[in-house]
């Protein structure tokens, strides 16, 4: 067997610096993803992990994969995640209480066992030779070499994957399409429902936010003629988010007392 033990097994110093800065940061970001409460923060930390991995790919002579990682993962996939987070809405913060008793200790113990096993396995494994490196294979360029492999040895897998992509797109369209079971209520139906709802308080429509308050914004409840705040004037979404400002400081009586 040809002895390939050149110095490629040991990575050069700049890559070591890169690794020892970005590697711990990636692991910390992944841990943070586990611990933060809001799903949006998890998404941002995951985007950081993915960018770090893209840099790792480029450092390991996988230029094409590094670019694809940025375009596909941090570009498309993470945007899709954030899009769905916005769609699913404001209560997407996770409750960190455990619902199944004893799940968390068991999960962490099992994961520690698994991680310890992997790390010790990697520490003890010998590959039989030193690392070869991709300098020879990438001589004509990484993209060219990948394309030659993709369209010869892996061409069947490539075609199957294209079928999978089309199926996934169709499946997503089928799932996203909803057909109405009952017909959409017309303006007449809505009007009838308002008048038959028991009280006539909202018969003429709900009050606008910010009206008669000195702070004219959608997050301040409008004031009723008797000076009390009309809580129905603020959007339900803002209430659920807890973004409603008290209208008390903006009332006229309060100002007169100051003067």
């Amino acid at each position: 067997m040809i002895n390939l033990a050149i110095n490629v097994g040991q990575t050069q110093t700049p890559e070591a610096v890169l690794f020892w800065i970005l590697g711990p940061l990636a692991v910390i970001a992944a841990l943070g993803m586990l611990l933060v409460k809001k799903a949006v923060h998890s998404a941002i930390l995951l985007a950081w992990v993915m960018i770090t991995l893209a840099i790792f790919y480029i450092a390991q002579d996988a230029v094409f994969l590094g670019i694809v990682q940025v375009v596909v993962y941090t570009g498309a996939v993470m945007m899709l995640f954030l899009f769905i987070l916005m769609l699913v809405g404001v209560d997407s913060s996770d409750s960190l209480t455990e619902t199944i008793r004893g799940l968390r200790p068991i999960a962490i113990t099992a994961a520690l066992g698994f991680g310890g096993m992997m790390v010790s396995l990697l520490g003890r494994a010998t590959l039989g030779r030193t690392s070869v490196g991709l300098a020879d294979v990438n001589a004509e360029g990484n993209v060219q070499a990948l394309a030659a492999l993709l369209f010869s040895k892996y061409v069947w897998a490539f075609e199957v994957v294209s079928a999978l992509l089309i199926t996934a797109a169709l499946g997503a369209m089928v799932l996203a399409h909803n057909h109405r079971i009952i017909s959409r209520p017309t303006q007449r139906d809505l009007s009838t429902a308002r008048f038959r709802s028991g009280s006539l308080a909202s018969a003429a429509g709900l009050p606008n936010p910010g009206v008669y308050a000195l702070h004219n914004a959608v997050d301040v409840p409008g004031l009723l003629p008797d000076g009390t705040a009309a809580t129905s004037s603020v959007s339900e979404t803002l209430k659920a988010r807890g973004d409603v400002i008290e209208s008390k400081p903006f009332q006229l009586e309060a100002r007169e007392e100051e003067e």
Partner: protein
Amino acid sequence: MNAANYLYVSALLFTIGAIGVVVRRNAIVVFMCVELMLNASNLAFVTFARINGNLDGQVVAFFTMVVAACEVVVGLAIIVTIYRSRRSASVDDASLLKR
């Protein structure tokens, strides 16, 4: 520094992702943890491609990315459908089969 250090990072990220899948309750966060596990395996593939001196590992990592993209598209569509009918994205709420 040895190229195998990337494999340790990969193992750690995979383990963290596995904990997240089991522990977190929000379906979207669970999905993100699955993505983290897929990414960790991709890093291992790329590292092994470098150690072995051929590009097969990179091709497999490329296919993994495609499959992950499909999985995200279908999975998020399912989450949106469940959210539409139940107004919740928590994996604990979808337990109709239990009763």
